[in-house]
């Protein structure tokens, strides 16, 4: 197992470097211009000077190598300084976003709690809803509960979040005015009242995303449970006189969870990516909105940094999912 993990990690390094090169070349080849959205009243010579100040005058490979150096050397050194109070990275140029002229990582660090709170919480709630629904749907297959569960899953999976989000805003935010239609990112939770305010403003985006996640995972759970409920050991356990509850929740559930846990682990990088559409619809201003804004303004350093981080997370979580599978299921052997 350890050898397998090490081998995967070593293989990940050239994979990730290749991914970063592909992203960079795609961004270079794309027709947009970082200075495309500035007002037309700014004359061309001024635009040229602005372009040079952003470092766009250099050749592409120089800029790519510079970014690599900044990402793998300057930024970690900066975090090390931040933690340990040393000053090794002073004077070194960090990855600067074109739009804001500020270090890209500072913005990402600022937005991360926002995304983790809303999107992470919705993932968790989606899980908590999906697992019981999946278990009961499988146990009582074809009952009215199962039919309703299937229907809700289909609806939750096929309706896009920009549709459900806007419908919820119009119904609950504007007509009924139960929840605010604009999310306040500067809100601080200090006491019970502010906590209630936070819950109220998170209600709608979390609902939309939880519905979407729950739909997927409940189907997986149901399928996995159905597979296991037919097995012989279940019949044996019942014949031995074990109660239904113990049979289902202790034996069948544990075995069914194995593939579901790997699916959950694979879905985690998407949490960090932020639900791009939902964040935009609810103005949650997390990492998803940051990525969309950066893409629209052709902010190459920011797009590269964000997508590369997502690539790292996806590779890491894929490895974790595989290892978890090996840990949970003793029949699997990696060598």
């Amino acid at each position, binding site marked *: 197992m350890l050898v397998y993990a090490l081998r995967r990690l070593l293989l990940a390094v050239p994979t990730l470097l290749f991914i970063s090169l592909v992203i960079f070349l795609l961004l270079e080849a794309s027709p947009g211009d970082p200075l495309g959205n500035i007002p037309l009243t700014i004359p061309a010579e001024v635009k040229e*000077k602005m*372009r*040079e100040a952003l470092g766009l005058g250099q050749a592409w490979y120089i800029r790519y190598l510079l970014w690599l150096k900044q990402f793998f050397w300057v930024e970690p050194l900066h975090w090390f300084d931040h933690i340990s109070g040393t000053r090794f990275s002073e004077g070194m140029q960090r990855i600067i976003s074109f739009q*804001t002229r*500020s270090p890209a990582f500072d913005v990402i660090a600022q937005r991360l709690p926002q995304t983790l709170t809303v999107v992470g919480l919705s993932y968790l709630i989606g899980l908590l809803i999906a697992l019981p629904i999946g278990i009961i749907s499988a146990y009582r297959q074809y009952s009215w509960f199962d039919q309703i569960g299937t229907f809700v899953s289909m609806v939750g999976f096929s309706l896009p979040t920009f549709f459900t989000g806007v419908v919820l*805003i119009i119904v609950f935010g504007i007509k009924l005015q139960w929840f605010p239609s604009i999310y*306040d990112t500067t809100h601080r939770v200090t006491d019970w009242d502010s906590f209630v305010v936070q819950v109220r403003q998170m209600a709608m985006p979390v609902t939309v995303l939880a519905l979407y996640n729950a739909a997927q995972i409940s189907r997986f759970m149901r399928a996995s449970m159905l597979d296991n409920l037919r097995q012989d050991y279940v019949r044996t356990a019942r014949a031995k006189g074990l109660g239904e509850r113990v049979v289902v929740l202790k034996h069948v559930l544990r075995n069914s969870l194995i593939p579901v846990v790997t699916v959950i682990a694979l879905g985690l990088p998407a949490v960090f990516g932020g639900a791009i559409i939902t964040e935009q619809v609810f103005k949650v201003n997390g990492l998803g909105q940051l990525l969309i804004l950066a893409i629209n303004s052709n902010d190459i350093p920011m797009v590269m940094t964000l997508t590369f981080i997502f690539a790292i997370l996806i590779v890491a979580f894929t490895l974790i999912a595989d290892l978890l599978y090996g840990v949970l299921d003793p029949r699997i052997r990696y060598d």
Partner: protein
Amino acid sequence: MRLKTLMLGAVATAAMAPAAFAERGADGQVNIIYWQAPSTLNPYLSSGTKDLEASSLVIEPLAGFDEKGVVYPRLAAEIPSTANGGISEDLKTVTWKLKPDLKWSDGSPVTSADVKFTADYCMHPEGGCAQLARYEGIESIETPDDLTIIIHFREPRPNPFTAFTGSQSPILQKAQFEKCAGTGASACTAENFGPIGTGPFKVVEFRTNDAVTLEANPNYRDPAKPAFAKAVIKGGGDAAAAARSVLETGEFDYAWNTLVPPDALKGMAGAGKGKIVTGFGTLVERIEMNLTDPSPDLPEGERATTKHPHPILSDERVRRALSMAIDRTLLTEIGFGEAGRPTCNLVPAPEMFASDNTGCLTQDVDGAKALLDEAGWTVGGDGIREKDGKKLHLLYQTSVNPIRQDFQALIKQWWQDIGVSTELKTVDASVFFGGDAGSPDTFQRFYADVEMYANNFDGTDPEPYLAHYTCEKVPSPESQWQGENVNRYCDPEYDKLIVELGKTANMEERATIARKLNDMITKDSMTIVPLVDRGRVSAHANSLGGVVLNTWDSELWNIADWHRVK
């Protein structure tokens, strides 16, 4: 006698009492939503108007433009003019005097050194300052004492109100930004996100592309203002959500640029919580005619250059016919509603520069057909006109924008009626306006026959704007396709008048020449076919008082006067 004085004194104090009620910070918090989130609070490094507007709460210029376009003093004691000696006779020297006892929000005094530093900061060769055009033509700046700034221009300037005037060139604190000049600009994140200023508010927290939290500046020069103790500018979402949050839910007090289809906007305003305000500036949506041939049959490097005049559009009659077929009133109604006015002028405002030009406002399809017949274009079998074996086919391009796509569809239909076949093309806005020398789809490259977009000019003087259409500003491969004269219009008479305009100081004479230039390029030659004078439209809550929409400066220009209506 003593009693009388005492009584008089008491009456006087009682009369002053209402004035004392308007105190700083009495009205709580004002919530503003900018659906394009501000990215930085340093307008010299900004990439859009949203940053200028957000920063205008904190940093101020020496003078600003009010809602009528008139220059008024902000940090300056008075506006310099030839009458008070502030502007020299030869129009090359301008003297500004600061108001006395001005303080930055950190308590330190504002001096002329800060003003001179701001100019040096923007004019630094490696700074990449976005507002460099405001400081054009400055030879040197002297600061003989703490309150006086003398600007020496290279050439005589009839309109010197560019540097330090308007929200594009506010004054930065030298002590704060000293180490940020030139290449150091990017390392100064704390300064760029939290400039110290003289404005009614100071920055508490700035989350880039997200939200700005501000509080009332304790050192603001008017002790009774601002009425609000706290201001929050939230960014993100789209125009429709922003309009809804003010007009329907009341979560926000002010929404900037609520560019929503007119009927939807009216529906939202019907909820009665807020009102829509519109103001007209100089933004004109127009069709530009290409006077050169963009045909792909020509070799690269000669397409859309003055080497090959356009085979169809070189004839003024064809251009005029195309303009006559368009119903501008219908276009305005569909696209902008109350926020637009049909126009025939390139320069619709200020009033004295607006030519009396209304001939194009009525659609005249028969007249257009007659003109095309006269020009030798006869209708062929398929309804499309042809001449010498060539069909009257045009490629019409614009940026991706729902209103522009509606306009394209309508105009294509009208041109179909007069026998012109049109091919429509749309290009993503960041590519169309990007100015990338290698891209064939930019508006300067103009690899199309006609294109449509909107443009305006800063400030109240159209001279630099009209000077775009001189012969030397034609984009070409030699100039990396940079150049504002996208039509490739070249008329020696026009150039001569531009030179004369540069030498004229008297405002009436300047206005006359400017109107003539406007007519030459619109009414007379139909090189530019203006369609709609687009106004700004914003929404604010009924409970917010003091809002005056200003299209000549930042929309938040008078936020110090905003208050809650009781």
